[in-house]
């Protein structure tokens, strides 16, 4: 029996390999050497930088590899870069925070790198099985990271809730894929699905529609879309703050990468069927996220609901399903990564003493005692609310113009109205910081260099990307050309 192993080039998955090997190296060094190791964050950052260089080096390629299992294209690369940025910023935030909890362990960094590998797989998959495997690599790493503070009851709750519901959602996704396999006549390659699911007969097949609906449930859970959002507030509140930031930006980005790739590439012929479904989901997600966020007094919970709302905005772009829509998904995810991680950086700085100051009223009078920090937080809040000249504004502008361009006027209007609602709770933080006296003396805040650098960098970047969006727009436009249907 002869076996012909397909030709492949390891370079095309170079960034994955770099990150995975880096993670394994961390684990080995941690296991085989004695004493406390302080260099893991730097090492992880170096590995991420290397992966970013590899990605940039690959830029421009357009092919598939490993027997058509992965796409090697700019859409994947741009997502790689966003994911690497998210992971790097998270690692910058982590070290002092973990030390405070006595949890500065090598496994933390290794798991973040592994989760990033899983996310990259999702962004580059050309076959449903790769999407599923990537999703599981990412999810399992994140389940564990959410429960990393295992002496803390809320962290345990977060991990358990995320695990149980996440497994449930994975089952939905798998059922969707299985039904799709049947409906498409035995193939799960994304490009082949597009070819097979075109004639009118398959279009009206209930089996196909059922499969698509189940896929929406699976992806909807990972991006925290209403009504699959129930886990979000508890998990975001209970998980370590740095991991909450990571979950909010990177997990969401990866899920949207796969979501967009599957729906733009495999189901363009079904647009009539799924756009209505996603329309409803988008409106429900935006509205519920924004309205419930108003009632929150815990800053992490508030940001959790805000993250639900932002998933809703991105769903609007998915509904639009045109080139500008695809560009706006990429742009918005970049902007969201910057402003959200920045906001969580401020939360980490203010929280102190094992997360003792998480109430939003702990921010009262912050501007008088720590004007720099308050200014940073204000920038992030303005950006999240979508005010010019920040990146949040430009992102929303792209999204809603894409919706208008595609003819979804009402969706755009509802989106803008939701943004207005969100202004209330984002500005409330700013008002508390600048116009209220402190409830009590906040005490000193330890400005650790890494976290401070992260907050400053994200604040500057949020503004800069908002003022000069053109270069990223061009990159994104270049990368979404791979979708023939848009």
């Amino acid at each position, binding site marked *: *029996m002869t*076996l*012909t*192993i*397909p030709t*492949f080039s390891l370079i095309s*998955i170079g960034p994955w390999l770099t990150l*995975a090997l880096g993670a*394994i190296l961390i*684990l080995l060094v941690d296991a085989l050497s004695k004493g*406390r190791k302080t260099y893991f964050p730097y090492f992880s950052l170096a590995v991420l930088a290397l992966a970013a260089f590899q990605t940039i080096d690959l830029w421009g390629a357009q092919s598939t590899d*490993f*027997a058509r*299992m*992965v796409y090697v294209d700019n859409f994947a690369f741009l997502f790689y870069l966003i994911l690497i940025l998210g992971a790097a910023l998270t690692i910058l935030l982590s070290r002092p925070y973990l030390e405070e909890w*006595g*949890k500065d*362990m090598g*496994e933390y960094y*290794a*798991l973040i790198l*592994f*989760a990033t*590998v*899983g996310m990259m*797989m999702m962004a580059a998959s050309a*076959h449903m*099985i*790769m999407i599923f*495997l*990537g999703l*599981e*690599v990412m999810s*399992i*790493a994140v*389940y*564990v990271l959410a*429960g*990393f503070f*295992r002496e803390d009851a809320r962290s345990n709750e977060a*991990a358990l809730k995320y695990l149980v519901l996440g497994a449930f959602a994975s089952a939905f996704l798998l059922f969707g894929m299985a*039904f799709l396999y*049947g*409906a498409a*006549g*035995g193939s799960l390659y994304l490009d082949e699905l597009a070819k097979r699911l075109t004639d009118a007969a398959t279009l009206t*097949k*209930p*089996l196909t*529609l*059922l499969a698509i609906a189940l896929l929406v449930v699976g992806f909807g859970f990972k991006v925290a879309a209403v009504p699959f959002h129930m886990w979000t507030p508890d998990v975001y509140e209970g998980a370590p703050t740095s991991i909450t930031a990571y979950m909010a930006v990177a997990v969401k980005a990866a899920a949207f990468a796969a979501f967009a790739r599957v729906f733009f590439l495999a189901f363009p012929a079904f647009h009539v069927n799924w756009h209505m479904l996603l329309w409803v989901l988008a409106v429900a997600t935006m509205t519920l996220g924004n309205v419930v966020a108003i009632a929150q007094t815990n800053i992490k919970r508030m940001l959790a609901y805000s993250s639900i709302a932002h998933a809703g905005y991105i769903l609007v772009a998915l509904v639009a399903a045109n080139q500008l829509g695809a560009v706006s998904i990429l742009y918005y995810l970049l902007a969201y990564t910057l402003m959200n991680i920045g906001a969580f950086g401020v939360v980490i700085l203010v929280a102190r003493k094992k997360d003792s100051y998480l109430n939003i009223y702990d921010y009262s009078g912050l501007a008088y005692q720590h004007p720099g920090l308050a200014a940073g937080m204000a920038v992030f809040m303005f950006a999240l609310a979508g005010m010019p000249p920040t990146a949040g504004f430009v992102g929303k502008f792209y999204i809603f113009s894409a919706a208008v361009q595609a003819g979804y006027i009402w969706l755009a209007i509802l989106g803008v109205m939701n943004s207005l609602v969100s202004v209330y709770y984002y500005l409330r933080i700013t008002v508390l910081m600048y116009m209220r006296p402190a409830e009590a003396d906040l005490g000193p805040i330890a400005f650790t260099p890494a976290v401070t650098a992260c907050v400053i960098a994200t604040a500057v970047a949020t503004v800069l990307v908002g003022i000069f969006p053109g270069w990223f727009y061009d990159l994104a436009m270049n990368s979404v050309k791979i979708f023939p249907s848009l």
Partner: protein
Amino acid sequence: MMAYIFFALAGIALISGVLVVFQTHPLRSALWLIVNFFAVAGIYLLAHAEFIAAIQIIVYAGAIMVLFLFVIMLLNLRQPEEEAARPWFGQKLAGITLAALVAFILVYGFSKAEVPLAKAAPPGLGNTESIARLLFTDYLLPFEVTSVLLLVAIVGAVVLAKSKLK
């Protein structure tokens, strides 16, 4: 003949599956789940997937469920200590309605579906060989990625379970 065996096995699978959910004692649920695994393994055999059937028994019935039983016995769960919270009437109604809806969609979906048959194994190759061939050609990358998945799961389990912390 095959059809009768299939329906018998499918019936066992369904009934045992329902019983898994309706037991009050976790150990009984686990035992019915084992019965369910056997029925499903039988269905795999009918589909000439001997390898999958054997793996189903070895991995699920023989290893995973033994671990489940181990944990249940280790905690020595006799009877649930407190009554589970009773669902509201509204919850029940919503659950039953949605379940009926899903059942309808599934039945309707499959009644309309003309699912083509999967490709037969190439002649001269047993089931195990054809799976191996697929794993090392078309599915080479997913097969290797699975090892990353397992590594992550192991590291995660160790992180959460390690007794002493630095």
